[in-house]
């Protein structure tokens, strides 16, 4: 059975996705046949009444924040005054220390919980 998307004809809001569709279609809904079940990489766009690519998730590098965020000016001041070779060693140590906490969701606080 083909996959079908039902959307509100006036607003474009997606109402339902599936293979079993009401017959007759309720008033105010438009049906569009899909090539397959929508993938996670897609999301519905009401204005265009179509599935579009889902934006890639943006993660924030806490290590980069430490070196650029004005709240850590003291650390940056120290960082600027150590030799490059020592910076590399320190950076590598911080990467190991941060582990899976190195990258955070943009909505999360910088601080580790």
């Amino acid at each position, binding site marked *: 059975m083909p996959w079908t998307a039902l959307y509100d004809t006036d607003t474009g809001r997606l109402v339902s996705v599936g293979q079993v*569709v009401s017959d007759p279609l309720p008033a105010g809904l438009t049906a569009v046949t899909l090539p397959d079940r929508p993938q996670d990489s897609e999301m519905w766009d009401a204005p265009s009444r179509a599935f579009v690519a889902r934006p890639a998730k943006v993660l924030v590098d806490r290590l980069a924040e430490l070196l650029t965020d004005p709240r850590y000016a003291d650390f940056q001041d120290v960082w600027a005054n150590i030799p490059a070779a020592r910076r590399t060693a320190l950076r590598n140590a911080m990467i190991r220390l941060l582990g899976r906490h190195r990258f955070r969701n943009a909505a999360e606080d910088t601080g580790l919980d």
Partner: protein
Amino acid sequence: MGDTQRLQTVGTSGGSRGTVVTSDAVANTKPATFTQIVASTPQAAQAICIYIMSGTSGIDFLLDIAVGASSAEQIICPDLLLSCGNGDHIFTYYFPIAIPAGTRISARSQSTTGGSNAFVLVVLIEQTFLPSSQLARITTYGANVADSGGTSIDPGATINTKGAWVEITASSVNPIKALLFALGVQVNITRTNMEHRIDIGIGAAGSEQVLLPDVQVVQNASSDSFGQAVQGPFFVSIPAGTRIAVRQQASNADATDRLFDVVLYGVD
């Protein structure tokens, strides 16, 4: 005489975990062999509580629980989801199904990373406050064996507004007398604190009727998981041949974090 109850746990290990069940070395593939949880159940059970846990972060499992002799296992609980964010995670399934005394119970699993360990404990519950007609069969809907997860549910970009219904099954294979569902995090371990409300509905697209309204769950940014990731059983009466769909609303519109997987389990 009042109701009597006896509960016994099988599958305990020397540590504080259950029996280790290692997934196939190939990702998202079930092995042919099962791992024994117990050689012979010490008592009859009218319900079972299955605990599945893992300490591996950012991994999804689908587990089968089976009964029967080695090389002749019969799967009774197919594709139980365990979805792990950060740290230890445990999914708890309560199924009102009967298992006779003297039964061998075993398990096998697949996972997004091959050769990963999950740990299984089973509590045998004898005589509880259950309906007199015994349930015996579990049918799974919405599991995705290609990625050891479930069916993705998107609430859409408008926060706190129910999104579109997503079909879990076009036609239920068996009747459903008790319904459970499990939520997966899609191996996303950088999640945002977020609240959700979930509807389960039945009926054709465009004419869904809400069966189970506004089940509340939350996802936690620290553990990258859902509190109460397994819900139910909810005692229902859904005929075979029914289309079942799920929709949800979320308190945050992040295009990735607002998504979750769902797997439904129908018991009859």
